[in-house]
């Protein structure tokens, strides 16, 4: 009797799985791992899910939480369900994660990076009409090597009062990031790639990075390749950002330049970001903090996470939906009627989201 019930349940279970598989193939609904995060993370994730629903995007969300747990052997790792989900779905969307100061474990972002070998951080910076900054014609992409360079974490105290930090540049990582940069430029119709370096001072390390970029550039003759010193890039960026297209660089320069470019368009609250990993894994995230002071009060601005989700849609090839949602978002900001506090208005997060949903539905 019980065995029969178990058999029926098994058949139902398998049936459910077949049903999911069929819908996925014929209706091409893709599953994406969603990591809401901490602080304002849950609210902005809900906002993004609502907007995607209004746009009828073929995305199914699988929510997972990431907290650091101690695995076998004493190494810190993310929960196995999260890891499995990401490896299965390959695409993820992440909200802000907090790193407690004396937690004893490395930051969550670092853990994710190590787990999935996220070697490229991509940040497209486009000026937003309606959110005024002194810079109005920004349209560039910064691609930053995310695994080595100055952030290798190798430091030694040589003698009392003398510290050395090691900056590591490897052929493999430089080649990988250069290849990704040129692929990105080709797939997104960008005309030029600029390598940012400081080879006049760090002759061997940045010299190696440059050599690899030059070698990869040989295979992509349709994309223009230039090299520029870091200080010249900073100088020209602040005076006239329209000269730049795609920038590729090692870790530290990338960190500084990507934040500089985010500042040009209005800050981290409106900047999308994506992390590309080996094995086709890609995690898109909002790079702002968790803002614990406004968490739960419906005051958060979901723009950064929304634009990252749009970037994710483009990565998956769903350009139509991406354009629809992005236009709706920019229209709402341009109208300046319903804006959250950080954008200069005093609407609530839910009102902002509802406005975007309305626009998306009107577009159909």
């Amino acid at each position, binding site marked *: 009797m019980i065995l029969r019930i178990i058999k029926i349940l098994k058949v139902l279970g398998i049936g459910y799985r077949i049903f999911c598989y069929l819908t996925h193939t014929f209706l091409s609904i893709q599953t994406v791992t969603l990591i809401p995060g901490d602080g304002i993370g849950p609210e902005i994730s809900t906002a993004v899910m609502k907007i995607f629903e209004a746009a009828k995007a073929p995305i199914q969300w699988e929510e997972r939480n990431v907290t650091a747990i101690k695995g076998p052997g004493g190494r810190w790792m993310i929960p196995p369900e999260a890891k499995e989900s990401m490896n299965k779905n390959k695409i993820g969307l992440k909200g802000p994660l907090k790193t407690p100061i004396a937690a004893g474990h490395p930051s969550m972002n670092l853990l994710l990076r190590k787990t999935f070998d996220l070697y490229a951080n991509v940040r497209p910076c486009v000026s937003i009409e309606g959110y005024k*900054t*002194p810079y109005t014609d920004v349209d560039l992409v910064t691609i930053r090597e995310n695994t080595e360079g*100055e952030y290798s974490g190798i430091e030694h*105290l040589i003698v009392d009062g003398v510290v050395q930090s090691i900056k590591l540049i490897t052929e493999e990582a430089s080649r990988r990031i250069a290849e990704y940069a040129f692929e990105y430029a080709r797939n997104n119709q960008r005309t030029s790639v600029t390598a940012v370096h400081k080879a006049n001072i760090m002759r061997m390390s940045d010299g190696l990075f440059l050599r690899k970029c030059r070698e990869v550039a040989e295979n992509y003759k349709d994309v223009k390749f230039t090299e520029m010193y870091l200080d010249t890039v900073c100088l020209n*960026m*602040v005076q006239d950002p329209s000269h730049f297209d795609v920038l590729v660089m090692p870790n530290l320069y990338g960190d*500084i330049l990507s934040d500089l470019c985010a500042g040009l368009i209005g800050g981290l609250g409106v900047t999308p970001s994506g992390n590309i990993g080996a094995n086709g894994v890609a995690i898109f995230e909002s790079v702002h903090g968790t803002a614990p002071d406004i968490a739960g009060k419906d005051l958060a601005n979901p723009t950064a996470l929304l634009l990252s989700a749009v970037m994710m849609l483009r990565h998956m090839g769903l350009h139509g939906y991406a354009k629809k949602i992005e236009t709706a978002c920019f229209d709402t900001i341009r109208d300046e009627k319903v804006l959250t506090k950080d954008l200069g208005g005093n609407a609530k997060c839910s009102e902002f989201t509802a406005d975007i949903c309305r626009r998306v539905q009107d577009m159909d």
Partner: protein
Amino acid sequence: KHTTIMMATLTKAFKPILGRQLGNTAKLFPGLSCTCNTPTECLFIVYLQPPPAKYGGRHTVTLIPGDGIGPELLNHVRELFRFSCVPVDFEVVHVNSASTSEDDINNAIMAIRRNGVALKGNVETNHTMPPNHKSRNNLLRTSLDLYANMMHCQSLPGVQTRHKNIDIIIIRENTEGEYSNLEHESVSGVVESLKIITRNNSLRIADYAFRLARDKGRRRVTAVHKANIMKLGDGLFLQCCKEVASGYPDIEFDSMIVDNTTMQLVSKPHQFDVMVMPNLYGNVVSNVCAGLVGGPGLVPGANYGRDYAVFETATRNTGKSIANRNIANPTAMLLASCLMLDHLKLHDYANMIRGAILTTMNETRLHTVDIGGQGTTSEVVQSIMRIIQSGGPLTTEI
């Protein structure tokens, strides 16, 4: 013991003659054992700051033309000084950036040791040369121990920029950090570059920053770092800054991470007052600030060591693409020469030239190409000379 007493007597005897110079810099080393018998021999043990290269009322300054726009701009400086009868003679030392031997740069360093002060253009570094060919500018800075690079970014009234009324002083550690030139390839395809931070240098630069802030009446010093990632290196730098800050209770001290700093600089630059930072971040931040006030042609920079001072443009550009076309902006180099005159205590001349430069800046017609105008370098310099002549003091003919 006999030697120490001798030296103490000598110091007391010479103090009224050599005055402040000896009092501040003479170092007596207790327990020093030397076998000198005559007082004259002992004199050489006492360390003296080199006297200024000033003879007959005229100073001698080393001039290094460099590459690109350096030679033409420094020619304009010489012309202007000759015209305004500034009592400064230039000893020109050429440094050939293409040669692999270090004789040229060593000659230049020796000349600067002789004269104490230098004005230089940027010597180009060809980064395709092998790693043992070091950057000439870097060699100069480290050999002369010019530990502090000071850059005062001020919005000039006549120049159109996105942000107005910026007034930031940037102090950058000039000798160590990422520019240590220590690189090796341990395994083929893996290169390691060492970034060195030492306690002594960090304390020294922090002390310089706070003293400067106090002298100029500034209220806040911000340390720029990345100590959340480079915990030991930048952590040490930050700790040294905090230690020095505790000795200056009248000046506020805070710190900011470098990526946040660049973001704040492009959106809200008025929150910064004096900034102090290690070498590479200094490079980035000084270029961002130079861009904010109008470009590389407007900001002068100064490198100070304990005994020597070298003046140049703040962003150290060679400007190869605009060389010899009479379109370079001479403002940065001329303001650097004014900083040099201030260092030589020729304040009247410095103020006269600076005033003439600022008056010329107000004329949009005379702006060079980099700040959106159509003027040529010679037109700008001619205008400055005309203003100086109309100001009254003795000048030669134009």
